[in-house]
């Protein structure tokens, strides 16, 4: 065996420590996990978007041989009297109670030892609904003519939602506002005013491992295996539903086959627990690929954005109104609405800013966070808008941005000073790679070429807490306990590298314990690119604590300062044999100041996330087909802990966003998703990867980050969509304001401009 590297562990492109386990099929995933004696659940779902449940006939299903039991909310309430859950609002029932609020909502469940029997029995259930008027569009929902819920039920977890408690007659689950300067006055004196509206479609995470949870309920405790991104939150929420202390709830999370924000908070866990309570047997819920369309999606959005520009090309005012289509249950939508609201005006230095961001209930599958926490929807709008202004003013898109860019030391819209945010450097590197100022082959005939770029800023979700434990055994080997979920992003490897860096051991010798709330300490959740920074700090602190305790042990056994006696010998000297432990702990929570009633705060975020993209494209003017011939992603990640993993995070995020930009769309008819399968909802494949793809991190150092690092997971989703739309405009002079940018929408816009519109059939 080759000697493993000691010394600097941070900055190594160490292959993922779990890679061998995964490619040889040995890695554990909840979806394929078996627990002795378990029953399989299959879900009967609503076929109407909004309706009162008149009757659910489960008799035929119950009588099918092999069926263990059939359950509705009536049964659930016998074991969990108030069965409503959710991170921001306690609005989602474990099974529908009295009403259904979206097509696909779970109404009843069949349990059987044979999943095929359960599936067959589900077909025998008959529900009778009194259909109610439904609302699907977010702007229409804001008119409050059709109400999704009679009353708002905030969870109380977030202080800024408390004022919504008990509010009636509204679909608005949160209204975030920010006021800086005086936009009306600035618009009145501006030389130019521009206003545009942008929309995004409903898309979903589509992790290749669909949602799965197994619950094993006993009178003294419950064990839950789940494909969850936040084991600590699952534990807290299940304990609340059961009225138990947290230490009776154990949540175990193996590797995840993708998450992207979909598996955050609580999904199938409460239902699995309720069923296990009713059946007195372990119960597994493993959704099909198709059922993911009825679980959680990204927010569709409408963004009306208005900017005032002075005669010199400086943006003097920006007004942003955003409507977020949150679906039937709030999930984390209110957080998306507020936190993304901070930066809705973009990475520009604008004195007068007004932002209104609304979370809306509608009768659709609930929406949550998807690789960007709302930021990709906002960047789509503000970077398209910014480009349109530059074009209208006949200014170069790069120069116009640079003239208005938010620079180091300047206050961002919230009033928080921008620090360690390489916005200009990122923009410059995209431009340099595209040779922006050089002449460009614009194509000819029916193939026209264009290019575009976009840059974005995000405030990380704050304040959040992470805790880690580093345990050194008596033979000197090191174990890390942390709750960050490795769902494919390589966090186990990065965390092991940070432990190795502090303790001067090879990262691959550090054991990272799989997430288990009985042993791994609290973590807020693996979300919003927060883990490398927050958990990274906790891990660093835990390792430093262990290192200090090693030094103390050295002194205690009479070793000279700086002696290199092996750790195992120190333990042996101290305990007379191979015995004992050194346990280091670390807790990290950054400072944060909540925004005031005007949305202003001097500390909105512990770090700024910065990234952008540039593209070169070809448009076929006869068909509208767009081919991305080159994609450049540039990001500020501080100092990369593992450069190779950082690169794959950038390429992966940008390819995911290419799908959301170019063709992914949940087609919805009367609330029914008409393409709820991988046959009809396509995600990018290998042939969709641009022939040239470049990923770069700028030379940067996050001064308050662990080893100079900060998060990366979401970054390359930000700039892709507007960069492509800007390039389409550059190529053929046509502007699209709604995603996805399908070939048909390009051709329709082109032909409309040329007064040869396509027909409506």
């Amino acid at each position, binding site marked *: 065996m080759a000697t493993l590297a000691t010394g600097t562990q941070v900055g190594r492109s160490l292959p993922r420590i779990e890679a061998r386990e995964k490619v040889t099929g040995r890695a554990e995933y909840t979806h394929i996990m078996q627990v002795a004696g378990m029953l399989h659940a299959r879900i009967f779902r609503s076929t109407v978007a909004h309706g009162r449940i008149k009757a659910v006939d489960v008799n035929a299903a119950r009588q099918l041989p092999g069926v263990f039991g059939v359950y509705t909310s009536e049964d659930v309430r016998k074991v969990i009297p108030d069965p409503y859950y959710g991170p921001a609002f306690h609005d989602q029932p474990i099974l529908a109670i009295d009403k259904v609020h979206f097509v696909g909502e779970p109404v009843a469940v069949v349990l059987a030892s044979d999943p*095929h*029997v359960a*599936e*067959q029995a589900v*077909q025998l259930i008959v529900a009778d609904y009194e259909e109610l008027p439904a609302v699907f569009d977010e702007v229409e929902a804001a008119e409050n003519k059709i109400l999704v819920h009679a009353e708002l039920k905030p969870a109380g977890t977030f202080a800024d939602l408390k004022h919504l408690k008990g509010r009636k007659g509204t679909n608005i689950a949160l209204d975030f506002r920010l006021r800086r300067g005086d936009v009306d006055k600035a618009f009145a004196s501006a030389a130019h005013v521009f206003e545009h509206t942008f929309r995004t479609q409903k898309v979903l995470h589509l992790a290749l491992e669909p949602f799965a949870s197994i619950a094993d309920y006993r009178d003294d405790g419950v064990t839950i295996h789940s494909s969850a991104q936040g084991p600590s939150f699952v534990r807290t929420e299940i304990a609340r539903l059961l009225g138990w202390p947290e230490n009776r709830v154990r949540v175990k999370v193996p590797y995840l086959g993708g998450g992207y924000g979909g598996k955050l908070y609580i999904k199938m866990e409460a239902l699995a627990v309720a069923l296990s309570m009713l059946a007195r047997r372990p119960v597994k819920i493993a959704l*099909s690929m*198709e059922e993911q369309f009825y679980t959680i999606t990204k927010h569709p959005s409408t963004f009306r954005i208005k900017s005032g520009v002075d005669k010199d090309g400086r943006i003097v005012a920006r007004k942003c109104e955003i409507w977020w289509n949150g679906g039937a249950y709030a999930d984390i939508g209110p957080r998306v609405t507020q936190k993304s609201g901070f930066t809705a005006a973009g990475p520009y230095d604008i004195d007068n800013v007004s932002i209104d961001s609304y979370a809306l209930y509608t009768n659709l599958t609930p929406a949550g966070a998807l690789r960007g926490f709302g930021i990709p929807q906002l960047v789509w709008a503000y970077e398209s808008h910014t480009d349109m202004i530059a074009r209208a003013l006949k200014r170069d898109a790069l120069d116009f941005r640079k003239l208005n860019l938010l620079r180091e030391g300047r206050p961002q819209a919230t009033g928080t000073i921008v620090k360690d945010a390489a916005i200009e450097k990122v923009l410059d590197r995209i431009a340099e790679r595209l040779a922006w100022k050089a002449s460009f082959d614009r194509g000819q005939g029916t193939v026209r070429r264009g290019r575009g770029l976009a840059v974005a800023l995000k405030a990380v979700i704050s304040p959040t807490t992470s805790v880690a434990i580093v345990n050194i055994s008596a033979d000197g080997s090191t174990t890390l306990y942390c709750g960050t979920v490795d769902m494919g992003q390589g966090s186990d490897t990065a965390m092991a590298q940070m432990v190795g860096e502090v303790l001067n051991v090879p990262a691959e010798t550090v054991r990272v314990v799989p997430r288990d709330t009985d042993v791994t300490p609290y973590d807020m959740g693996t979300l919003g690119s927060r883990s490398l920074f927050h958990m990274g700090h906790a891990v660093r602190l835990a390792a430093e604590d262990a290192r200090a305790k090693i030094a103390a042990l050295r002194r205690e056994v009479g070793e000279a300062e700086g002696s290199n006696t092996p750790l195992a010998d120190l333990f042996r000297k101290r305990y007379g044999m191979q015995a004992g432990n050194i346990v280091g702990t670390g807790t990290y929570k950054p400072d944060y100041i909540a925004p005031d009633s005007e949305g202003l705060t001097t500390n909105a975020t512990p770090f700024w996330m910065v990234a952008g993209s540039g593209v070169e494209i070809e448009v076929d003017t*006869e*068909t509208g087909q767009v081919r991305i011939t080159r994609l450049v992603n540039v990001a500020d990640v501080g100092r990369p802990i593992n450069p190779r993993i950082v690169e794959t995070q950038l390429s992966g995020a940008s390819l995911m966003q290419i*799908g959301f930009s170019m*063709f*992914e769309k949940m*087609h919805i008819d009367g609330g029914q998703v*008409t*393409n709820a*399968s991988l*046959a*009809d909802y*396509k*995600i*990018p*494949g290998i*042939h*969709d990867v641009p022939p040239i793809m470049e990923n770069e991190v700028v030379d940067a150092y996050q001064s308050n980050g662990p080893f100079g690092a900060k998060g990366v997971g979401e970054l390359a989703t930000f700039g892709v969509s507007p960069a492509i739309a800007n390039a389409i405009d550059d190529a053929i002079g046509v502007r699209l304001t709604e995603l996805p940018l*399908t*070939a*048909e929408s390009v*051709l*329709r816009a082109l032909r409309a401009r040329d007064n040869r519109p*396509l*027909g*409506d*059939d």
Partner: protein
Amino acid sequence: MTPFELAEPASLKEAIALIDPDDPNVRPIAGGTALMLMMKAGVFRPRRLVSLRKLGTGFAHIAATRDGGLAIGALAPLSTLEYSAEVARHAPVIVRTMRRLSNTRVRNVATVGGALAHADPHMDLPPVLIALGATIKIVGPKGERAMPVEDLLTGYYETALARNELITGLHIPPQGAARAVYFKVTAGSADDWPALGVAAAIESGAGTVKSARIVLSAATVKAMRLESAESALIGGKPDDKTIAAVADAAVKEADVMADLRGSASYKRELLRVYVARAVRAAMQEVA
């Protein structure tokens, strides 16, 4: 998925006997790539599946025929066509089509016979085989018969096969000087089902088109020849004016349907453009 019987007959005769012509829930299965999806979605709940896998390699051959054409067994997996030197020699368009036909995993198990009998209008192979003038051999309880591929497809997922008839093989006639192309036009990812497929096989000489077969798929209920477009091309000089007339004839002739992948008016534009491109590309192949 509920339990069902899986029969694995060792002979063709046995296989045919196991298929109950009156029971739609008894079906033959070859590669199963389409049937398994239908079963997972619950739209097909079999009572019995008659697997054709044990019928032996006799139905998976690829060989040149005495007439200079090519014979392909119905059980040949698509990937064997993809990598066959015989196929590359006789009908290189098939090899090119394979590269974007679904994915490697599907091509490794999906069979030629299944790709025809399934009759999903979005499939890539049927329009190509129609353009090549291929015929199939069919065996049923009453014996064997032959049929052009274009007559096999009668509608949306509908064929001229009786329920207990099986496709046993395919014959592609010698192509002579004709050259063929296929354009798969997707609206979603590159590996999506096509919004439109256009295949063309054209023979020309001395500046005129001698024969032309132009086939449209995916946008209509079945893969079909566009005969008025073909007549507009045959006998003439394939200049820009002619090709525009061919494309117009195609749009006039085809009853194009709207679906998730595009409106009818958009697909008509695609048809106009891709018929012209297919004709030009096939002519270039000739040159």
